């Protein structure tokens, strides 16, 4: 019991430090909370007063606000998990943690719980701003069901983020990979606009990826007024399956060491480096020609009649 209590205290402490780190890097908070809000405000303005025929003629904001909850959640979980984890790994922070008794699963759990908290704050903000500015009407009866979907999504997308980190070789590649995988997915997943009119095959593909089931579920639960609260179990299955696959993949391949230190360094450099060569340097400074065979001349023959090679 006391061991469990200690682990819980470590977990709580880790969450506190993770949050503190987040608050002290305002750019990260900006990206996760402000970007979804900006998209909501901009697109909401463009489509103000329009309705969506393919969805029972509901007001655009009734579709778009739940879609932005999905966007905010994926940004907070997937995006920030990929970028912060890769950077911590490449800086050697994860390696240092690995030499302490901090259990890896506790570290990762606290990280996921922290991004979940950020995702929650971000989602609530999206709901509040949508309601305040564009008159979004939340279907309150469906909130508990939506919360269940949301929790599964948080776990699945965080796990996907952790899994993707193993495919990112360098810190500079983290953001491009994260955005580059997330944005196209958003376009085909009923997030930026409904894809009800898209070709059948595209909708089929999108439905088997993790984001569309999540967005559709939130949209059908939270959007239409007075809609019956019914979970689509297929959506949940797809979402959860991605989560399970991601967890298995992450467990098998997650790395704690910076890429440069894992292997290869020694292979590239000979074990006994050549000694310094003061004689060589002295020759260089005297502008003597080195003993090595000189490069073949670029031109041969008479000036102006150079042979072309290659």
């Amino acid at each position, binding site marked *: 019991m006391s061991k469990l209590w200690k682990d819980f*205290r470590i977990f709580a402490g880790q969450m506190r*430090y993770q949050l503190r780190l987040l608050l002290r890097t305002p750019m990260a908070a900006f990206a996760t909370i402000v970007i979804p809000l900006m998209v909501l405000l901009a697109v909401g303005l463009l489509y103000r007063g329009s309705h969506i025929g393919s969805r029972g003629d509901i007001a655009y904001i009734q579709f778009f606000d739940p879609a932005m909850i999905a966007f905010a959640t994926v940004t907070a979980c997937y995006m920030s998990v990929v970028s912060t984890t890769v950077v911590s790994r490449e800086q*050697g922070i994860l*390696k240092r943690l690995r030499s*302490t*008794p901090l259990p890896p699963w506790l570290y990762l759990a606290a990280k996921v719980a922290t991004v979940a908290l950020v995702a929650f704050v971000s989602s609530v903000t999206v709901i509040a701003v949508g309601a305040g500015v564009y008159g979004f009407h939340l279907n309150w009866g469906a909130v508990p069901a939506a919360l269940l979907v949301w929790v599964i999504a948080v776990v699945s997308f965080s796990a996907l983020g952790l899994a993707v980190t193993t495919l990112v070789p360098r810190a500079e590649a983290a953001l491009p990979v994260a955005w580059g995988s997330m944005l196209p997915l958003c376009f085909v997943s009923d997030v930026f606009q409904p894809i009800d009119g898209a070709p059948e095959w595209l909708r089929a593909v999108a439905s088997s990826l993790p984001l569309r089931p999540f967005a559709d579920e939130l949209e059908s639960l939270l959007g239409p007024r007075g809609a019956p609260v019914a979970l689509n179990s297929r959506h949940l299955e797809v979402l959860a399956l991605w989560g399970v696959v991601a967890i298995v993949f992450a467990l098998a391949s997650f790395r704690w060491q910076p890429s440069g230190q894992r292997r290869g360094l020694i*292979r590239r450099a000979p*074990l006994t480096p050549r000694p310094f060569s003061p004689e060589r340097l002295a020759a260089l400074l005297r502008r003597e020609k080195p003993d090595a065979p000189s490069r073949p001349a670029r031109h041969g023959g008479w000036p102006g009649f150079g042979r072309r090679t290659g």
Partner: protein
Amino acid sequence: MSAIEVTDLFKSYGDANALRGICFSVQEGEIFAMLGANGAGKTTTLEILEGHRRRSGGKVSVLGLDPEHGGRALRERIGVVLQSAGIDGELTVKELVSMYGAWYRHPLPTDEVISAVGLEEKYHARVGTLSGGQQRRVDLALALVGDPELIFLDEPTTGFDPVARRRTWELIDALRRYGRTIVLTSHYLDEVQHLADRMVVMVDGRIVAEGTPESLGASELHGTLIRFQLRGGDPVVALPPKLAKIVSIHGGEYTVRTTDTTATLLELCRWAVAKRFELRSLEVVKPSLEDIYLELVRSEPAEAPLDAGEEPA
């Protein structure tokens, strides 16, 4: 009882062998140093002992456990200063040390640890704002806060100013007084000479010498050096054949290395008197640890191409 036992340790990366069968043991309560050039395999050895890397062959026991499977139980008992490891620069010194302390069963008080590494004034400073040497002290504080029995220090004083280096030595001395075992790597021979109870010299993934700093510097093994200068600008003078074989000339300085000191000295003086040469700055010295180390590292025959190296059993 030994804190660490290493038998026939091999490590290869692809077809390159980083460690080629090394054996050593570290006794409880001693300071054990590993010396060698960059790429000799010191860090690889240390990281295998810490559980960061898997070995390709051989047996390793750290505090009675296999570091590959020791897990949390082992990490509770060891402290590690890596050669280079990142740190969350946005946290303060105090936050980091108390966060790390919370993971151990019997941590030392945060304030005391910070004072011990001389960072009292930086208590509330964010680690990212500290200088390189100060961050290295944070590394040390984080390794010590769990009150470990066994401490790994990979080049702990690299980048320190001389004062900080002395203080770190005193700190390491204090750790030994309280029975802690320390394994360290270093490039500095004075550091090893000052701190280490025992040391090994590594070249190309092998241990080429082992002993106490005194035994490695023992004159019986490596002879004595007789150094002298001849009048400047002199052409190379014909030394007696016996001496010519063992002399090395560097600038105007002649060095004779011999195990037969008295006879060699007599011969040298006879020759000089006969030829009416003045032996200037004549001295007879014991080779320093540095002389011996440089010779060990240099005299090791170059390895055959990497892929021809032996494979772990």
